[in-house]
Each structure stands twice: as structure tokens, then as C-alpha cells.
């Protein structure tokens, strides 16, 4: 790995890490969803700082080019993140469905109460006056 490439990798990993922290700080992302991203950027940073780790891993699973291993790992990570997003979306969809249903039932109650109020003010005021 050339020095230039290594510097580029370190820079990229750091930028990703900073972006995640900024998003967290401004409340644009919750900690729950940031954990996977944080892992990804930390692993990238370790690979960039200590390429030796990649070489050992490469020997372990017999990948020709060390960089391919990095690509493969990153791809797996991204798949994980996407899966977790699909899960999150499904849960949100279920919650919003429940909310919509509750809202519709409440709306009907409000409508009926308003109707009942409009019809009965005379009865209410009648005995007083």
C-alpha cells in the first residue's frame, strides 16, 4: 500500500467519523442507529492506520489482493446497515399504522361529541334560566 493511498484511507475514515459525530451532536441521528456506522468507520480507521491487520486477515481467508478484502468487508457492513434500516422502517410503518387508526377513531369520537354539543346546548342551559 502506498503512503498516499494510506493517507487517503485515514482521511476518509476520519471524515466519516467526524460526520457521524456532528450528526449525533445536532440530533440528526439517534445513538441507536449511529452504532453500526460508528463500527464501520472505526474498523476502516484501524485498517488505514495498521495495514498489517488487513494482511493477516488476507492470509487467514486467502484473498489475493488485501484491498479486495477491505472492499468485501465494507460491502458486508453496508448490507448490515441496510438491513437494519429495513427493520427500522418496518417498525415505523407498524407504529404509524397504529397511530393512524387511533387518530381516525378519536376523530370520529370528536365529531360525535361536537354534534351532541351542538344539539344539546338548549337542554343544558334550559334548567338554569
Amino acid at each position, binding site marked *: 500500500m502506498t503512503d498516499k493511498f494510506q493517507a487517503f484511507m485515514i482521511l476518509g475514515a476520519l471524515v466519516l467519523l467526524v460526520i457521524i459525530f456532528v450528526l449525533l451532536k445536532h440530533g440528526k441521528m439517534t445513538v441507536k442507529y449511529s452504532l453500526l456506522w460508528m463500527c464501520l468507520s472505526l474498523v476502516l480507521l484501524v485498517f488505514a492506520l495498521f495495514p498489517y491487520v488487513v494482511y493477516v486477515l488476507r492470509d487467514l481467508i486467502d484473498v489475493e489482493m488485501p484491498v479486495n478484502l477491505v472492499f468485501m468487508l465494507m460491502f458486508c457492513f453496508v448490507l448490515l446497515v441496510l438491513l437494519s434500516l429495513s427493520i427500522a422502517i418496518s417498525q415505523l410503518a407498524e407504529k*404509524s*399504522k397504529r397511530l*393512524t*387508526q*387511533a*387518530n*381516525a*377513531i378519536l*376523530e*370520529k369520537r370528536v365529531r360525535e361529541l361536537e354534534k351532541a354539543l351542538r344539539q344539546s346546548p338548549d337542554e343544558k342551559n334550559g334548567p338554569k334560566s
Partner: protein
Amino acid sequence: MQTKAKILVLIPCYNEEANIVKTVERLRELCPEVDYLVINDCSTDRSAALLKEHGYEYLDLPVNLGIGGGIQCGYVYAAANGYDVTVQMDGDGQHDPAYLNAIVTPVLEGKLDMCIGSRFIRREGFQTSFMRRVGIRFLSGMIFLLCGRRVLDVTSGFRATGRAMTEYFARHYAADYPEPEAILAACLAGFRVGEAPVVMHERQGGVSSISSFKSVYYMIKVSLSLIIDRLSIKRVHKS
């Protein structure tokens, strides 16, 4: 029909301005003793205005949930208001309120938890197209394989449910094309499901929710959902 029993008819309505008034009027005329509730699933046509204008009983969903979420909303309402029998009936004039008694009676008598109005028992009236019948036969066979119960008209949206079944559906109900899935889920959860013969009409206007273009997607999606339901719902045997 016993006068004591509280019966609620749910009528899902999505862009049914051509049929909804006729459907509700006919129901009120033939079955004045039952309550009804139109579920307007965020229609983009004049359905909502028509419902308001005529002073009908209706739920107005603020966002479109699809038939599954919409009907489930009706089941939640029915469960919360203590109805003995909840009937689901399409808003497009396919289902005739004259047959309401036929599907409600087995549930009221406690013989069934869910009674489906089936057009294939006596084979009278509108029998739908050949391709759809093939599809329905396939899903029917699949449900038979997965839970051992033979239901002929699995896509029929004309069905009556008892109190326990209604409460179950208020908690779990399939999302997109729920009719076949609801049958399998009910069977697996130990409810008694059966059919009663009814006559259906061809829809009187508007467009069906399942167009021919979507039917392939429909079959794949429903088949997959059925298999997943079979794997995920724990079988309960009620004696």
C-alpha cells in the same frame, strides 16, 4: 336474528364515490337493526364529502393505509365498542346485504368464529373471471396444505367474525392483501373458520383494488406471506 346482539358492518371505502351511497342505503334498508361503519381510507375522490353530506357513520383515516390497515381500524373500533359480531362488506356493491343473515347466524349461534360468504358453494351469481378462479383455487389449496382447513372462497371480503376473532384481528391483521392471510392466521390460532353460501354481484362501478397487472405480484406476495405465517404463528389446538 336476535335483537339483543350488537352487530357492526364494516365497509372499507377507497375511491368508491360511484357505489358507496348505494351500498349504505341498501344496507340500511335491508338491515335497519345493524350498525354500520364506513372506513374511508383517505380517498382522493368525493367519497369523504359524500359520507359527510349524507351524515353516515364513518371513520376518516388521515393517511392511506391500504385495505388491511383500514379494515383493522374497523376491528379495533368494534372490539373497543363491544360488538358481538363484526361483518366486513365491500363498498362496491359486490356483496348483497340480503345475505348478511346467512353469514352472521353461524357466528351468533357460536358454531363458528369466522364465517366467510362464499360464492363457490352453490355456484350462483357472479363467479369472477377464469384466471381469478384459478388463482383462488391455488390459494385455497395452499391454505389447505398449510393448515388442513378447506376454504373455497379465500379472497371473499364478505365475512362475519365473533367477538374473540374480532379482538384477535384488532391485534394482528395482514397489511396489503389480507383476506387469505386472515383465514390462515385464524385457523392456526385455533379459531373455527367456515363458509356460508352467498350470491355476489359484479362490481357496479369504479375499479377493483386488484388489477390484472398487479395479479402476479399479488399471487407471489400472498403465497410468501402464507408460508411465513405458517412458520411464525404458533399453532393452537382448541378442543
